[in-house]
């Protein structure tokens, strides 16, 4: 029995319980005295019963799926003899993985016969154990909900109880956000710590050379691989700066025009058009950067006899800048529109022109908000992946020249983790070390930016 049939069964049972519970409550109510009716509507009694079916089964099912790998190991180890374990090259967990990966119908030729037998045994036992467990969970749920139906009586206020449970369920749903954050932090820290066991933190943060190729054999040349992340950080910084030099002027001037000069009509047309830029998937920008902008810049360089790499930082950075424009323009548009009218009126009354008002009154007043918007955009640019994966280089290159190819943190994470992964090599773990650096940096930027924007808003409210 799989999860699918389990869900179907539980829905059927729930429908039955709703019907039965409603009927039962109505019957009880009917038999009662006029002065002593049930305090809640019948549906609350059946709802109460369903809660007793659903909540325990959900918890138990989750527990089962979390415990399943352990149970798998136990089944395999209980079947395999001591002899096979000692003969197997590698430790027991590798043996268990090997057994799990055997395809029973068509085993790989030359597979150990004992292992195939173990795999067959594993499959049969697992099916039996799973069916048994799922049926057990179901019958427990049914039992609990029938007890709940038995409780229907005038003394039992079902609505209050059901509402209390519902609030608890809603609370659990909102805690998912916290759980996700904790999950991110722990998964990153845990793997990153394993990385820093192999490579010292100092070498990672301040090393000048990045070449994560680890040797497969001990005696290979360059077997050590170096993990100095400075070239990557520098590349990320370079591309971010290029993106910002494109995005800040265009975004800011657009925002000024939209909030101060445009008529409501133009504004209502142009704003959604700019928002389209934010809705275009990043993979599309990446394609555009790699196929159109990269070759165009290369050709342009040839005209001026400049040597521009086809994966230059300039191509990736400028396209990323285009992507960032709407973030800056719409956020700074908001903050500039929020500057109180009386400040502007004061400036006009003194005879200032519109541009003078913008430059001398509105921009200074809105500056914290604009800075916040720019910081949010920077964090967006630093974490952007697809554009740089498709249009920037892979080799770590410590340079400040925008015409050369550089690499970024996100590109490295992707290249380190795509393909075969050995989860004990420094090469794959390095991706998590880069990941936590990225997470911390963007988190700082976001917290700081949100704080600025928040403070600024309070000032004028």
């Amino acid at each position, binding site marked *: 029995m799989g999860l699918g049939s389990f869900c179907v069964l539980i829905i059927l049972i729930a429908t039955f319980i709703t019907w039965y519970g409603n009927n039962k409550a109505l019957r009880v109510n009917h038999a009662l005295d006029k002065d002593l009716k049930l305090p809640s509507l019948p549906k609350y009694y059946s709802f109460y019963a369903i809660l007793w079916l659903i909540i325990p089964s959900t918890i138990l099912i989750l527990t089962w799926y979390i415990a399943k790998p352990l149970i798998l190991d136990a089944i395999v180890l209980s079947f395999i003899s001591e002899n096979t374990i000692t003969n197997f090259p590698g430790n027991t967990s590798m043996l268990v993985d090997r057994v799990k990966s055997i395809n029973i119908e068509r085993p790989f030729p030359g597979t150990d016969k004992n292992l195939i037998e173990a795999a067959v045994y594993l499959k049969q036992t697992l099916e039996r154990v799973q069916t048994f467990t799922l049926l057990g969970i179901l019958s427990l749920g049914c039992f609990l909900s029938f007890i709940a139906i038995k409780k229907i009586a005038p003394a039992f206020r079902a609505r209050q109880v059901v509402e209390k449970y519902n609030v608890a369920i809603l*609370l659990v749903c909102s805690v998912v956000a916290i759980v996700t954050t904790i999950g991110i932090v722990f998964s990153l820290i845990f793997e990153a710590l394993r990385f820093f066991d192999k490579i010292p933190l100092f070498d990672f943060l301040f090393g000048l050379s990045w070449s994560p190729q680890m040797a497969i054999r001990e005696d290979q040349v360059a077997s050590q691989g170096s993990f100095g992340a400075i070239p990557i950080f520098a590349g990320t910084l370079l591309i971010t700066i290029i993106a910002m030099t494109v995005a800040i002027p265009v*975004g800011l001037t657009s925002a000024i025009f939209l909030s101060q000069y445009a008529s409501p009509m133009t504004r209502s047309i142009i704003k959604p058009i700019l928002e389209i830029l934010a809705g275009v998937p990043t993979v599309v920008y990446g394609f555009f950067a790699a196929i159109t902008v990269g070759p165009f810049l290369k050709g342009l360089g040839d005209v001026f006899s400049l040597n521009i790499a086809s994966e230059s930082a300039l191509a990736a950075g400028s396209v990323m800048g285009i992507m960032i*424009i709407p973030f800056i323009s719409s956020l700074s548009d908001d903050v500039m529109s929020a500057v109180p009218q009386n400040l502007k009126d004061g400036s006009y009354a003194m005879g200032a022109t519109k541009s003078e008002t913008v430059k001398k009154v509105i921009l200074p007043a809105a500056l914290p908000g604009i800075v916040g918007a720019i910081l949010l955009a920077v964090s967006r640019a630093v974490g952007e992946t697809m554009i740089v994966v498709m249009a920037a280089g892979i080799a770590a290159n410590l340079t400040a020249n925008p015409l050369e190819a550089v690499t970024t943190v996100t590109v490295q994470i992707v290249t380190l983790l795509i393909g075969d992964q050995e989860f004990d090599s420094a090469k794959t773990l390095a991706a998590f070390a880069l990941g936590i650096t990225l997470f911390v940096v963007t988190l700082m930027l976001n917290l700081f930016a949100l704080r600025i924007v928040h403070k600024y808003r309070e000032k004028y409210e």
Partner: protein
Amino acid sequence: MNKNTRIIAKSLKKRNRSESTFRLMGLLGIISAISFLVIILFSIINEGKKAFVSTQIKLDIFFDSKILDPGNSGKITEIENANYQTLIKASLLNFFPDVKTRNDQRDLLSMISSSEQENLMRTLTNDISLMNTKKEFWLKSSSKYDVINKNPEMIDFAEEDRLISNQQLFWFNELKKDNRVKFGFNKIFFTAADSTEPEQAGIWGSVMGSFFTLFVTLLLSFPIAVAAGVFLEELAPKNRFTHFIEVNINNLAAVPSIIFGLLGLAIFLNVMHLPRSAPLVGGMVLALMTLPTIIIATRASLKAVPPSIREAAIGMGATKMQTVTHHVLPLSMPGISTGTIIGMSQALGESAPLLMIGMVAFIVDVPESFLDSSTVLPVQIYLWKSTAARGFVELTAAGVLVLLTFLILMNSFAVIIRKKFEKKW
């Protein structure tokens, strides 16, 4: 006029000039932003429209029973396993009788896509009476010829840069002169999954992958996000804990998407041992990513419902929970669904986290369930872009067009819902 007014009058011209320059700068900003958008769309449409048609070549195929069924057994299995390449070759040699050497014959045969052999087999086994008859077929050309046919400027390239040799180009032109070459609708692009040959690769596999992934995303994120939004906006006490939840949600909304991919890899794959490349895992990762978007939209549209509705319900004796579920939530549903669709369209365009959990594999079969290995639209675009063969460039652009079409559909649906159902209080 006193001295001051004169100074002002003198400076006025300059100030007015700077005023108009400033205004012009703003206008330039808008124009450049919009022209970026136009350039991007134009260059992609220009490239992508080519992939919707494919070059087809008309050949007279003679279903020779000596080749297909030498034993004259009449068995279908025999005919299914026969060598259909020989039929195509015979037909081509019929047209170009001078081609003698083995190498030349192989070069000639490479003109027709290898997928057509199977199509011929299908045609014949469906209608066995075609045996020993001659029939005209429009066969798909291989990708190299397709590229040349679509980009006529490449004909003038030097032989080594051109994908096909002078000899091959000559044959192709001969066929063209005989009106045997046309553009036909590229059906394979809309029905097949990925392939190593550009002319046999299609988008359908990744569309289905995206569908399964987004289904999981919607199933997980919508209920959880609406529940969280309702709790935080309507029921939660204002205390430190709920404030902490809010800060968390705002931060998650700004965490780079690739970090969610790392989370999926470390927890869903390495700890929970869920299958790699499966839409289930992809959907779970994207659901975590979309949660903040939907929560924020839910809260905004709950906030927009005026307090008078709540007061009226409570005045009639409803409990807080009843007020929310019977009145406030239904009234804010249009806003919530708009936010959900926008969140879903973000998830549809997202690819970075899916690269981390192995949805970047080369998948030849159209996925049929939540556990089949599959890829999604944007990742398919990324995969095609990374492939060297020239024919994939157009496919990539066409994939982008398909993705953009889906996004436009989803967003216009959101706009329609908003326009039609949203109440202004």
